[in-house]
């Protein structure tokens, strides 16, 4: 099936022999809206959250942890938090894990996570800068990048 230059989503039905392209006008509207509200993305972000997505992490529930992080960002309309993923950090038994790095602060690894714990880490550590020590593995000086 050829993908034309303007094709974004396609639903193709061989039975009906029709190809229906979903409207992309909505996407353009969103683009304009985001452009107006965007402020800090290009500048320095306040925090980076790295979700460990190795086989061990995924099997332990890392995808739900990532969804929970995304939900917090959306709910709180935070524009300057970067979410990324990395591989296994070698501590498979403590997955799901995330590493939280605030600007100019040492990274903190959180272990044995649940979506509930993410809510607390988000409101306490990311937004207020207070490390949630009860969920943290250690506070170190290494970075994930």
């Amino acid at each position, binding site marked *: 099936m050829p993908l034309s230059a303007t094709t*974004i*989503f396609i639903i193709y039905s061989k039975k009906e022999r029709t190809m229906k392209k979903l409207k992309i006008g909505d996407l353009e509207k969103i*683009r304009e809206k985001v452009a107006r509200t965007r402020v800090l993305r290009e500048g320095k972000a306040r925090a980076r959250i790295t979700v460990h*997505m190795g086989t061990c992490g995924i099997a332990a529930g890392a995808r739900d942890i990532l969804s929970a992080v995304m939900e917090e960002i959306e709910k709180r309309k935070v524009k300057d938090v970067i979410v990324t993923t990395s*591989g296994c950090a070698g501590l498979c038994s403590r997955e799901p894990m995330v590493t939280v790095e605030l600007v100019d602060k040492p990274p903190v690894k959180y272990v044995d996570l649940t979506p509930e714990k993410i809510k607390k880490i988000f409101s306490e550590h990311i937004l207020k800068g207070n490390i949630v020590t009860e969920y943290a593995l250690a506070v170190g000086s290494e970075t994930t990048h």
Partner: protein
Amino acid sequence: MQDLSLHILDIVENSIDAGATKIEIMIDEDIEHNQLKIKIKDNGKGMDKETLKKVLDPFYTTKTVRRVGLGLSLFAQTVKEADGKIEIRSKLKKGTAVSANLKYNHIDRKPMGNIIETIMALLATKAQDIDFIYIHKKNKNEFVLNTKEIKKKLNSIMINEPEVLNFLRTRIKKGLKEIGVAV
């Protein structure tokens, strides 16, 4: 792994680690022929023949932080349980393709799970640098999502902006529903 969508996320993570800039995820639910096909194809650094022989061995890994490599071995096990076949093709500097063909109605076939969350996890974290093509077929219908085209439309706006992701999630859900995939 609980379901196939998590295996897919795991295999795609291999592609990301291999430095791929383009990753194609294809799922084909061919109920008529009682087949469920899954294919993940990347343009990453690929593997030589020697490495390719070892990838399904749980005690082979490229990592130094631990001594086991379970991703592909676990997937191979899942495929085998559903009376299926797995094939891995790879060419150094060209890329790798992992194809699995499972028996759709096999009693031990793991469920698909939440494929939308797998795709969203990739879009939210990696789609800015990597082009993803997600093709989902069900019987004679198919749904295609191509992030390269989406990014072109978005111009300088990031694909991982919450508003954009929200829009994409809704659209994927709608698209899958329309081709008859239960979401």
